[in-house]
């Protein structure tokens, strides 16, 4: 499970020994996040975002539990109870802004975390299971965020619920029954709000459970690193604590500064103003958009405007939107290159950045109204999105001539930072 040179947990106090024989929790922490977890010595700042995502989840759970103490899941009072939190509850405005901004930040951090994994090939063997569990977390996050957004019972909440549950009505034969079942009625109403509240409270703990599996799976091969090559000796690693705990705390400090700046100065900059209008089932907002973190997928949904192959446009959009994420589960088998890191894959590296631009452009299209040129642009970008994974990546990973890999992580580090050249000193972590 870990490298043979990993430090062994040695309880020093009598209490520590007593505990270790009965519930070895300190040993578990020591081996998971402490000195007992040897980690590649060359992890850069992008490797901070997994920890940041964990912190973001904890912030959401803590603020969410507090908000639930003041929120009322009833269509007649839900919107007012949110305003009650904002105006009357002591410090309620801060808690709610932390929760709303926190959702955006959680997604932002997770997107960077995902793209880091894409760039450095962290989805490749032997880390496929970590990748797939991460995607499960991502899907759960999307469901949780959507249901949480509905709870406010503003205009965007209501119409978001209408549109998203309407996706299921695209399925042939059973579609309408499924939508009715999800809503507990024929349109979003009290039954919908109550079940979304129940599930919105439940799912974060499910996410927490899957994160445990994600980290467990990570600890079997250990972290990937920017070179993408395997750890070969003790010189390639440093103990997680104190090296990465210290580094992660620096990153966390920066993250919290940015987070606080949003919470205190521009808390509504990431949200839709229309959601401050109470839900009205008889009036659709002129421009329904989800929160920014769903925009790329919303663009894919809307990219299909004509029927083809006997399948209605609406169903194509729904299939494509779900496929755009489910496809990522196959990525470890679509990219067959034995080289993980794009630092050593000149062609794939360019294509990675093209993909980043395409994903961001899809986001812009998804946030724009459903009119030209955005619809046409969404169609082109959606086609590229799928082509990237299904055509370009498999071909490139077969044909590409990769650069020579360094002999080891420590060799790569010393080539970059080592002084004196010649005889490279054997790197030893300072004791």
């Amino acid at each position, binding site marked *: 499970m870990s490298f043979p040179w990993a430090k062994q947990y040695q309880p020093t106090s009598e209490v520590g020994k007593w505990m270790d024989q009965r519930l070895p929790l300190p040993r578990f922490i020591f081996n998971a996040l402490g000195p007992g977890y040897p980690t590649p010595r060359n992890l850069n700042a992008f490797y901070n975002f997994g920890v940041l995502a964990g912190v973001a989840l904890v912030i959401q759970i803590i603020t969410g539990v507090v908000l639930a103490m003041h929120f009322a899941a009833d269509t007649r009072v839900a919107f007012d109870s949110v305003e009650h939190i904002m105006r009357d509850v002591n410090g309620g405005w801060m808690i709610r802004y932390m929760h709303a901004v926190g959702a955006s930040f959680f997604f932002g951090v997770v997107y960077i975390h995902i793209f880091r994994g894409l760039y450095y090939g962290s989805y490749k063997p032997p880390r496929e299971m970590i990748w797939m569990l991460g995607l499960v977390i991502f899907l759960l996050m999307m469901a949780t965020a959507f249901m949480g957004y509905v709870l406010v019972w503003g205009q965007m909440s209501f119409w978001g619920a209408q*549109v998203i549950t309407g996706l299921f009505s695209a399925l042939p034969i059973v579609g309408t029954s499924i939508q009715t079942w999800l809503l507990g009625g024929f*349109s979003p109403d009290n039954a919908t709000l109550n079940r979304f509240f129940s599930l919105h409270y439940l799912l974060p703990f499910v996410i927490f459970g899957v994160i445990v599996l994600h980290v467990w799976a990570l600890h079997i091969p250990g972290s990937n690193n920017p070179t993408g090559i395997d750890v070969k000796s003790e010189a390639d690693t440093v103990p997680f604590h104190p090296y990465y705990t210290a580094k992660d705390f620096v990153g966390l400090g920066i993250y919290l500064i940015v987070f606080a700046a949003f919470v205190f100065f521009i808390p509504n900059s990431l949200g839709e103003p229309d959601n401050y209008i109470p839900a009205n*089932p008889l009036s659709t907002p002129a*421009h329904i958009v989800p929160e920014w973190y769903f925009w790329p997928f919303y663009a894919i949904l809307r990219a299909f405007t004509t029927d083809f192959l006997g399948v*209605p446009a609406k169903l194509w959009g729904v299939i494509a939107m779900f496929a755009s994420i489910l496809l990522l589960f196959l990525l470890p088998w679509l990219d067959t290159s034995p080289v993980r890191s794009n630092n050593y894959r000149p062609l794939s590296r360019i294509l990675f950045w093209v993909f980043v631009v395409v994903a961001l452009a899809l986001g812009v299209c998804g946030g724009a109204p*459903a009119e030209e040129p955005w619809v046409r642009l969404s169609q082109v970008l959606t086609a590229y999105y799928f082509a990237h994974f299904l055509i370009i990546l498999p071909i490139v990973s077969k044909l590409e001539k990769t650069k020579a890999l360094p002999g080891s992580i420590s060799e790569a580090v010393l080539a970059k930072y080592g002084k004196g050249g010649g005889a490279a000193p054997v790197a030893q972590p300072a004791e």
Partner: protein
Amino acid sequence: MASEARQATADDLTPGGERRRDFLYVATAAFAGAGVVPVAWSLVNQMNPSADVLALASIDLDLSAVQPGQAIKASWRGKPIFARHLTPEEIADAKKVDVATLRDPQKLEDRTKPGSEQWLITLGVCTHLGCVPLGAADGEAKGDFGGYFCPCHGSHYDTAARIRKGPAPLNLEVPPYQFKSPTSVTIG
């Protein structure tokens, strides 16, 4: 001991190559399954519409004040209803369309009641993803075909509320309704 006949056990193979224990396993699983399935179903089914939601309240609409070219909105089963008084030009527009060219081929006569075809009564729910189309209230965009326009994803409906352009697959749904008098209608 060895000569004494051993008591048959559930693990002994029958001439058919089965054990009695196999039967016990199958019976246990079947019994447990028979218990689990109804419980699981009740846990799924509780999410379907409850009796009060299903109690399909019908609504009465008085159309006497609606002038040609106007429409009114009402709410039925939590969904908007559009009742539109078509002008003669709108009726003519709707009738001159070649039905075979439509995505969801229906004539105006299929969507109105005989003798009252100036009254177009539909759900105000876009068949794409369920937004409320514009075009019922004064001053709202009516789309390229003079009927309704859904701003969410750009579906255009004509004067018979048939889908003509955009992503929606079907015409606006016509709810069940009866005329009680020439200007009064019961929906549901």
